[in-house]
């Protein structure tokens, strides 16, 4: 009986001490982690808006060039030249894809796209994050919906190339973009015309 009580006391005491240690670590690291996440989001928005910045001056560049606005619960970001950026998310082939879409002030063409999170196949699907691939979206008209075509075949102003060996990922990616554009752009347009 004494053994059993000792056993329980031991586990309780050790558990409490370790939990206290974790609370302390959590308390110390949470502000830093939140700051990191904020910087990651801000640099993603800056990249999408094609605003160049130094890695350690993200906060400054952001507050000097970008204004945060809200409309019906949609948060979006407006650059000085009128370009508008907003975060998007959706399901890729293997996991969520998240990032930022930037559109031009005419509400018809894309300015830029960034990807901040994806879990696609390394070397195949994950190539959607390559700058060359994302660069082709600049200037594309999205009002009719973006259309995916075979690699190197894009000609019309709403067509984008897929990637060899990553058809499923690029397909999912373009679907995510179309869905987010369709849902978010009208809300922003409403907010901006008021």
């Amino acid at each position: 009986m004494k053994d059993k009580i000792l056993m329980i006391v031991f586990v309780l005491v050790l558990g409490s001490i370790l939990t206290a240690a974790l609370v302390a670590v959590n308390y110390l690291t949470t502000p830093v982690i939140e700051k990191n996440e904020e910087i990651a989001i801000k640099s993603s928005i800056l990249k999408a808006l094609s605003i160049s910045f130094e890695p350690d001056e993200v906060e400054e560049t952001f507050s000097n060039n970008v204004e945060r606005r809200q409309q019906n619960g949609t948060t979006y970001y407006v650059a000085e030249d009128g370009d508008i950026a907003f975060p998007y998310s959706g399901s890729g082939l293997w996991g969520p894809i998240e990032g930022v879409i930037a559109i031009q002030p005419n509400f018809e063409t894309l300015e830029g796209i960034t990807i901040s999170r994806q879990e696609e196949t390394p070397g195949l699907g994950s190539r959607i994050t390559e700058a060359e691939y994302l660069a082709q979206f600049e200037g594309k008209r999205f009002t009719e919906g973006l259309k995916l075509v075979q690699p190197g075949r894009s000609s019309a102003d709403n067509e984008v190339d897929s990637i060899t060996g990553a058809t499923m990922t690029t397909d999912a990616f373009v679907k995510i973009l179309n869905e987010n554009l369709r849902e978010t752009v009208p809300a922003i347009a409403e907010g901006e015309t008021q």
Partner: protein
Amino acid sequence: MKSATGAKGQSLKTFLNGVWRDHPIFSMILGICSALAVSNKVENAIAMGAGVTFVLLATGLLIAMLRRLIPTRVRMITYMIVIATFVIVVDRVLKALFPDISQAIGPYVGLIITNCIIMGRAEAFYIQNRIGQSLIDAVANGFGYTYTLVSVAVVRELLGFGTILGFQVMPEGFTKWVVMAMAPGAFFVLAIFIWIGRSLAGMEEE
């Protein structure tokens, strides 16, 4: 008390056991899950190796310190909560100080908790040995794990991405071996490493 030379000899033996004879990956095939998952890039392998080594050290210290107090029947639970605590510490510190690496190996940091190397060393060594020996054992096993991970990662990153630690090594136009960047590449390379390691050490299946 053992004599000084005896203790030194013992320490050396403990160390060599960890880095070679009882090498966690070659000899015991422990910790394979994480070794396969994070060995695609050298940077990730180093971070993971450092994380595992830290958890081993902290666990070794605490378990060896408490070894006379830990009731036999709850020793497994004790290992678990001790290991889990330090793994969470590693995860938070990585997130705070190295967000990029944390992003890359994120889910696998949590899996250090179930990394059999740590549980295995706690049960096989730390619960029976003094603090000094336990710490040496922790360093040795952590080093053994890390150098294997890094060697696998060097091969995989070189062939899969054409880079080492992010620097372009292979000439322009090099065709990347996609399979190396994916999980199957890890199986091939790790199997070859285990084969070489075991042949060199003269280990044989019984």
